[in-house]
């Protein structure tokens, strides 16, 4: 299958930045899964029974995909998974903003702790996730799927 050619900087830089960001975000969520579960509950989209599992899966996905992006390990697969997650986050936030709900977005809680930034759902986090979606696209389309320590054949 023919792959779209993107300049390598357009793949490497977002891969490293987003990889690091997702590792921090996933790790932080895993440290306080209950808090993340309560934020998911506030979205009022999932049934209560599924919330603990969703909190665990989303946190693990962020941590694992972030690590794989940073190490350039199956970057296409991990960025594709993150693309799906970004699409879900954008849809969920947009839906709740339209419903007039006000709550934490559950995105990057460390930004609140470090810089005092408000991490509530709204235009800001939606635009940020759209930007992440755009940055992930080149990696998903033409990033590498190789294992870096294996020598390429041919």
């Amino acid at each position, binding site marked *: 299958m023919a792959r779209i050619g993107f300049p390598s900087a357009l793949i490497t830089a977002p891969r490293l930045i987003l990889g690091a960001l997702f590792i921090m975000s996933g790790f932080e969520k895993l440290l306080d899964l*209950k*808090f993340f579960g*309560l934020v998911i*509950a*506030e979205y*009022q989209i999932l049934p209560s029974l599924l919330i603990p599992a969703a909190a665990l899966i989303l946190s693990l996905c962020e941590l694992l995909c972030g690590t794989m992006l940073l190490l350039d390990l199956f970057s296409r697969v991990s960025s594709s998974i993150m693309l799906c997650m970004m699409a879900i986050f954008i849809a969920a936030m947009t839906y709740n903003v339209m419903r007039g709900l006000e*709550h934490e977005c559950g995105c990057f809680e460390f930004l609140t702790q470090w810089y005092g930034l408000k991490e509530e759902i709204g235009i800001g986090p939606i635009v940020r996730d759209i930007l992440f979606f755009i940055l992930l696209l080149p990696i998903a389309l033409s990033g590498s799927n190789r294992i870096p320590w294996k020598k390429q054949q041919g």
Partner: protein
Amino acid sequence: MSGKPLRRTLIASVLLISIVSPLALQLHAATPVAIAKDESGELNLSATKALFDTHSACFVDARSEYAYHKLHIKGARSLSDSRFDEQFPEFRQKLPIETLIVVYCSEPSCAKARHVAKKLRKNGYKNVRVYSGGLVEWAHAGFPMEG
């Protein structure tokens, strides 16, 4: 008994009562269980603290559950405005209908406490008060919190 001493006694009694009763009222107001209210009919900080100290009320946090999870008034229960219907059945099981409930949220401008108080009254709890100062005022006063 002649009329004069009786009249004197009556006048003395009326005077004594009129002097003592305001003092008695003040004393009553100073007791910890007295529920002092501000102009809007909601509890102020000192009245809320008095109820907290005497353990005579159940404190209810009307903010989101995640906010409660991070920080709340010591011993308070969570009953969020946003997920009231999901949380209320368990709350109802644990708290008898006659319990004095003090509802609070983050600050005076936050309407969640009033909404939850209204919903509680609608569900049979008649003894519901709102602490309008909220967690910000409570924290500023250095009163006990946990989370």
